[in-house]
C-alpha cells in the first residue's frame, strides 16, 4: 500500500465523515489544551513558589573580634560551599537598624550598648530547599572557625516543605486524573467517529479488503487528527500564554519543547485510539 494512497485516504476521511471527524478533532484539541494548561500552570506555580519562598536565608553570627581580612576570608570560605549563592556581611550597626525596624524604637532606646554581633546573611541557591539539605549546609558553616551560630527559620521551612510536597502530590494526582480522563475522552470520540463508519467498514470487508487495508487509512486519519489537534492545542496555549503574560504574569514561561511534547501526545493518542477502535469493528 503506497504512502500516497494512505495520505489521500486519511485526508479523505475528513471529508467523508465531516461531523464525526470534526468532533473527534475538537475533543482532541480541547483535551490536550486542558492537559497542557494544567501542566503549564503546575510547572509555573512550582517554579515561582520555589523562587519566592524557597530562596533560603541563613543568618550566620560570627565572632566580633575578627579583623576585616578575617571577614573576607570567612565570606569566601562560606561562598565556596556549593549550595551557597552569596554571603553578605552585616555589621553590628546595620543589624541594630533592622532590629529597630522589627521591634520598635523604644526597645532599642533601653539598650545601653549594641548587643548585636556581626553576621553574614547567606543566600542558598534555589533548589536547595529541602530541610535535610539545608541542615547539611548549616553544619558545614558551623564547622568553620570563627562562626558562633547559624540561625534560620527551621520550623517554617519544615512546614513549607510539607505543604510543597503535598502540593506536588496534589498536582501529580490531578495531572494523572486529567491525563487519564483526556485519554479516555479522546479514545471515546475516536471510537464514536469510527463507529459512525461501521457500515463502511462492514462493506469494505464484504468486498474483500484485508484488515490491514481497512485499518491503515483509519489509523493514519487518527494520527492526523492527533497531529492537528495537538498543534491547535499548542497554538491555543501559546496564545493564552502570551495573553496571560501580557495581562498579569510577565514571568510566565511556555516552553517550545513542552508544546512539542503535547503534539507528540496527541499523535500518540490519535494513533493508539484509532488502532484500538478500528480493531473493534474488524474483529466483530
Amino acid at each position, binding site marked *: 500500500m503506497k504512502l500516497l494512497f494512505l495520505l489521500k485516504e486519511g485526508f479523505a476521511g475528513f471529508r467523508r465523515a465531516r461531523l464525526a471527524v470534526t468532533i473527534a478533532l475538537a475533543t482532541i484539541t480541547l483535551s490536550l489544551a486542558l492537559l497542557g494548561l494544567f501542566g503549564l500552570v503546575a510547572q509555573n506555580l512550582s517554579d515561582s513558589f520555589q523562587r519566592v519562598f524557597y530562596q533560603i536565608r541563613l543568618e550566620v553570627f560570627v565572632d566580633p573580634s575578627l579583623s576585616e581580612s578575617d571577614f573576607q576570608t570567612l565570606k569566601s570560605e562560606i561562598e565556596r560551599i556549593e549550595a551557597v549563592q552569596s554571603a553578605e556581611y552585616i555589621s553590628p550597626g546595620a543589624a541594630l537598624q533592622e532590629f529597630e525596624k522589627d521591634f520598635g524604637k523604644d526597645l532599642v532606646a533601653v539598650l545601653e550598648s549594641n548587643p548585636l554581633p556581626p553576621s553574614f546573611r547567606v543566600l542558598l541557591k534555589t533548589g536547595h530547599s529541602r530541610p535535610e539539605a539545608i541542615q547539611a549546609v548549616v553544619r558545614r558553616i558551623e564547622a568553620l572557625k570563627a562562626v558562633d551560630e547559624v540561625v534560620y527559620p527551621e520550623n517554617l521551612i519544615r512546614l513549607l516543605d510539607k505543604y510543597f510536597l503535598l502540593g506536588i502530590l496534589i498536582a501529580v494526582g490531578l495531572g494523572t486524573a486529567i491525563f487519564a480522563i483526556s485519554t479516555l475522552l479522546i479514545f471515546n470520540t475516536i471510537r464514536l467517529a469510527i463507529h459512525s463508519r461501521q457500515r463502511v467498514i462492514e462493506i469494505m*470487508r464484504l468486498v474483500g479488503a484485508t484488515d490491514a*487495508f481497512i485499518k491503515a487509512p483509519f489509523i493514519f486519519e487518527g494520527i492526523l487528527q492527533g497531529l492537528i489537534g495537538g498543534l491547535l492545542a499548542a497554538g491555543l496555549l501559546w496564545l493564552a500564554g502570551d495573553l496571560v503574560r501580557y495581562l498579569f504574569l510577565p514571568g510566565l514561561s511556555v516552553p517550545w519543547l513542552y508544546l512539542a511534547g503535547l503534539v507528540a501526545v496527541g499523535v500518540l493518542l490519535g494513533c493508539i485510539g484509532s488502532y484500538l477502535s478500528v480493531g473493534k469493528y474488524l474483529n466483530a
Partner: protein
Amino acid sequence: MIELFNVSVKIDNRPVLNDISLQITKGEFVYLIGKTGAGKTTLMRLIYMDLFPGKGNVIVDRHSSSTIRRKEIPFLRRKVGVVFQDFKLLPDRTVFDNVAFALQVIGSPKRTIRARALSVLTRVGLNHKRYQMPHHLSGGEQQRAAIARALVNEPFILLADEPTGNLDPQVSTEILALLESINRSGTAVLMATHNYGLIRQFPHRTLLVENGKITAGEAPYSKT
C-alpha cells in the same frame, strides 16, 4: 468449483437451509428462485463466507468453510463478485470511487483502476453519473452501480442477488445480456431472481429454494 456438502444453516435457532448439497461448475449460469424469505440470500452468504454452515461444508475454489482462516477470507471474496440485494454501496464516496475501491483492494495500479472502472460503468450505463454520491442516485442507478462494482475485478463467480429488482424491463434485459456475455467469457453466475419472465427469456439451469431444500426448479408460468 463451488460445492456444498450436506450443508445445514440455522439462524436464531430456526433452520433456514437443511442438509443441502449443490455443485456449480466453472462457467455455469444458474438461477436461484424461491419465495421471499426462502433462503436465497442465505445461500449466497455461505458462498462468500459471511456465514458459516452449522453442519456440512462449503467449498469455493480451493477454500473450504471448515478450514478457511479468517485472514484468507478477503482473498476468497476478491474472486467472488457480489451484487448485494440492498446494494451495499459505500455511502461516503462517489459511484466511481465505489467501483474503484474493489480494484484498490487488490492493489491495481491507478491507471488500470481508472480505465477498468470507466469501462464497466459504461457497460452498465452509468458513466454519466460516475461522480454522484450513491444517495443521489435513483434506486435503479444504485443497483447498476452495485453491478458495476461486482463485475469490475473480473471475479471467477458472480453472485447476483435480485440484480434487476429495481430496474425497468428494458434495462433488466440489457443487464441480463451483459451477465450472459460475462458468463461466456468464463465467469460463473449465480443469480437470485423473482423475475420468471427474465428466466424464460434467458433460460439457464434453475434452482428452487423451498422449505430449506434446494431442488432443480423451473420458472413457473405465472401470469406476471
